[in-house]
């Protein structure tokens, strides 16, 4: 490590964030293509991201390709870096980001947008794609946000839509050819647009109507009118890094994460992940057991977490848990499930996850009343929730967390109050069925502020105003009849900004840039988030955030993300939206296929 860097590391908190050198990091010297893989948040968040770990392995497995990790510095480190002229560097070798061929970002959260600009600036790379003329420092972004990457279209050269395991190697091979043959950036980007799943925003002209809505999306130079996301067809063959990096400092998800399947059979109408990860593709029990065993052995972790959108929908879950326990129990290794569906929660499952260590249970009914749960297609009945809690209390659990959203389309005050009533009924279950009352009970209700997202049936809906959200929080707080139930709610300002950015268009680029100039950093952190600064950026740029957050779109309006196809037809979203307005459920994908269209990405196969 350079002494210059060491000197500043003395002055910052948690210096291990910035040193690298962990077990299983990959250092490849003298490669033809070098990728700086940037995560626009802190080390402990980024290292908890399974997607980043997978793609790190995918790229480093390629011959003649080196991929190194870069994370966002906390404010103290940023200050030291700027004052001491230390440019943003990659952890493995300390090489400055500016010296990499490809600068890749993974974007999972809209509140990271200002940090993308900040990291480019810290690297000494021009922010605007148009100001980066050569083929070096190609900026590519992937992750769930890029299903509408338009707000970042000024800054990013290429968006990678969907899963990168197979797509990224194709992109890198093209880059290698372009680099070896001395292509211009223009020629490279045009060729990249021909690889399936890669969206080059500079090849699309966007025009607007006088009311501010999009008038037309016009592909230039023969670029495809619609870009379809990429998927991995066979999850058993998809690369999963079992020799993963083991951070030397504590990170958020400090454990082995097993991904059982991608996609979700549920079709909750608010859930972007539930739509954009379709179709459902599972790993086999054999694959998972082998991956769990290898990962635990190579990492030394003593905890494995089952992670999928709805892990309890994994068909052979009982077999998987049995197999895992057989391995885990003698090694004092625990098994955890991040959240559970209340409708298929069983005694057996609970006993399995608690066998080694017992932690709290989390259920997400999302809405308090049955009517609203039906409208959002949550497909969970009140008796399911109460039944699951009763089973848990009888089994000796005494901590239950209940997650809800406020501001869901069609929500009334009655629905809000119903959340308090449901929590109260859960408390009553504990009073009646707890096996051990001496330890008391902790029931926590958390509400977040609903953010309508692209590529969901609610993509046309308005978000309720912040004032209205706060009124509903207060209403709920006042409806809580007992102190035995704790209530936390999310800050409305963050979700309002998230809503504006999530369904934004290219005109938000200058707002993001202005906000960054004014000092916006790490907006997902309450310590650094400054809402007023963002509002100043909107007003200085003459852009109205309400236009994006609280405006209901017409179903015939051209949406900024209409050039992106996630596999689900727009007609399906419209149908689901109309059913929602009638409080009508759709069956889950297993009970009855609604022909959303996503199976077309997998040769007509889904959830087999």
């Amino acid at each position, binding site marked *: *490590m350079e*002494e210059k860097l*060491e*000197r500043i*590391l*003395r002055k910052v908190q948690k*210096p*291990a964030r*910035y*040193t*690298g*050198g*962990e*077990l299983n*990091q990959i250092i490849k010297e003298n490669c033809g293509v070098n990728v700086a893989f940037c995560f626009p948040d802190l080390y402990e968040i980024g290292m908890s991201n399974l997607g980043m770990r997978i793609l790190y392995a995918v790229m480093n497995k390629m011959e003649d390709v080196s991929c190194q990790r870069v994370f966002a510095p906390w404010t103290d480190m940023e200050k030291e870096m700027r004052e001491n002229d230390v440019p943003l560097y990659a952890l493995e070798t300390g090489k400055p980001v500016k010296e990499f061929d490809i600068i890749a970002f993974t974007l999972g959260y809209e509140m990271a947008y200002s940090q993308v600009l900040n990291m480019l600036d810290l690297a000494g790379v021009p922010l605007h794609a148009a100001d980066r003329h050569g083929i070096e420092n190609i900026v590519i972004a992937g992750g769930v946000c890029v299903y509408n990457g338009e707000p970042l279209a000024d800054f990013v050269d290429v968006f990678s839509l969907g899963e990168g395991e197979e797509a990224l190697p194709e992109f890198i091979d093209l880059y290698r050819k372009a680099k070896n043959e001395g292509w211009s950036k223009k020629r490279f980007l045009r060729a990249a647009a021909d690889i399936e799943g890669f969206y080059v925003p500079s090849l699309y002209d966007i025009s607007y109507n006088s009311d501010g809505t999009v008038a037309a999306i016009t592909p230039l130079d023969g670029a495809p009118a619609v870009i379809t996301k990429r998927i991995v067809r066979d999850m058993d063959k998809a690369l999963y890094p079992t020799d993963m990096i*083991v951070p*030397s*400092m*504590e990170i958020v998800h400090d454990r082995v994460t097993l991904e059982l399947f991608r996609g979700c059979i549920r079709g909750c109408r608010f859930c972007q992940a539930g739509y954009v990860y379709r179709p459902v593709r599972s790993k086999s029990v054999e694959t998972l057991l082998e991956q769990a065993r290898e990962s*635990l*052995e*190579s*990492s*030394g*972790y*003593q905890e494995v977490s089952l992670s999928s959108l709805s892990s309890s929908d994994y068909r052979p879950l009982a077999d998987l848990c049995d197999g895992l326990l057989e391995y885990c129990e003698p*090694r*004092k290794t625990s098994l955890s499930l991040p959240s559970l569906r209340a409708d298929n929660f069983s005694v057996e499952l609970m006993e399995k996850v608690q066998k080694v*260590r017992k932690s709290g249970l989390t259920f997400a009914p999302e809405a308090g009343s049955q009517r609203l749960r039906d409208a959002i297609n949550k497909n969970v009945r009140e008796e399911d929730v109460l039944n699951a809690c009763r089973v848990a209390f009888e089994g000796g659990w005494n901590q239950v967390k209940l997650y809800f959203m406020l501001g869901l389309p069609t929500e009334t005050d009655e629905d809000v109050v119903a959340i308090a009533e449901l929590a109260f009924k859960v408390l009553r279950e504990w009073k009646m069925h707890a096996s051990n009352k001496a330890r008391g009970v902790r029931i926590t209700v958390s509400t977040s502020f609903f953010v309508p997202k692209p590529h969901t049936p609610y993509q046309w809906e308005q978000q309720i105003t912040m004032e209205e959200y706060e009124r509903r929080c207060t209403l709920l707080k006042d409806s809580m009849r007992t102190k035995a139930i704790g209530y936390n709610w999310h800050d409305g300002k963050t979700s309002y900004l998230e809503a504006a950015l999530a369904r934004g268009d290219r005109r938000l680029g200058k707002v993001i840039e202005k906000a960054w100039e004014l000092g916006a950093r790490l907006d997902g952190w309450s310590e650094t988030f400054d809402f007023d600064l963002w509002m100043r950026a909107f007003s200085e740029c003459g852009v109205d955030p309400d236009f994006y957050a609280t405006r209901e779109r017409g179903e015939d309006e051209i949406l900024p993300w209409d050039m992106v196809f996630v596999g689900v037809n727009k007609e399906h979203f419209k149908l689901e939206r109309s059913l929602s307005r009638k409080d009508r459920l759709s069956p889950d994908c297993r009970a009855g296929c609604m022909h959303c269209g996503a199976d077309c990405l997998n040769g007509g196969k889904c959830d087999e």
Partner: protein
Amino acid sequence: MNRLLFEKTGRAAYMSHLDLMRTVPRAFMRAGVAIKHTEGFNPHAFVSVAMPLSVYQESICELLNFELLPGEISLEQLPEKLNSCLPEGIKVLKAYDARRPFKQIEALEAKITLTYDRGGAAEKTEALTELFGRSQLVINKKTKSGYKDTDVRPGIKSVSFAAAGENIVECLCTVSAKEPVLNPEAVVTVINTLAPEHAPDFYRIMRLSLRDAEGKIFE
């Protein structure tokens, strides 16, 4: 009881003591070597370190106690096995049966490298030698009951300075490892407080050895 002698240098210096206490048991797990765990609700590996090392300090003489379970590999094979399972900068030098308890550690020998960006190492050496020749060195030091003015001279068993080139002064010191324990960092604090004009622009601290009551190396 078994013991490891290991180094913690380079990038690993930025790992905190708590990080280390997570990393070493994981290395045993990775190596497939079973060690004794605590009993109880949350079993964890039973390991203890002789003297926790401050972040930023390096060491070539760290000691850690553990207990191999019966039927495990021999102690001779252990260093190689563990080293392939440890992050950069942590290297096991030796694994052996611990014969002497940690409480016999009396002193700690360390090298402090002081960097002066504007040079003058020779003059600094002279001034620092004189400073540490004083019979009392009172600094504001953190104790169990808050910050207190403390004379650290008795805790410094020996100290010497030597110029190494124009910008570097090397300090070799031996400090007390018995209550009241003195962190070698106190030497730098003494300079910064009592002779701020000689405060270094940067410094590194490297633990060299642990010593017993007779001044012999403790392992």
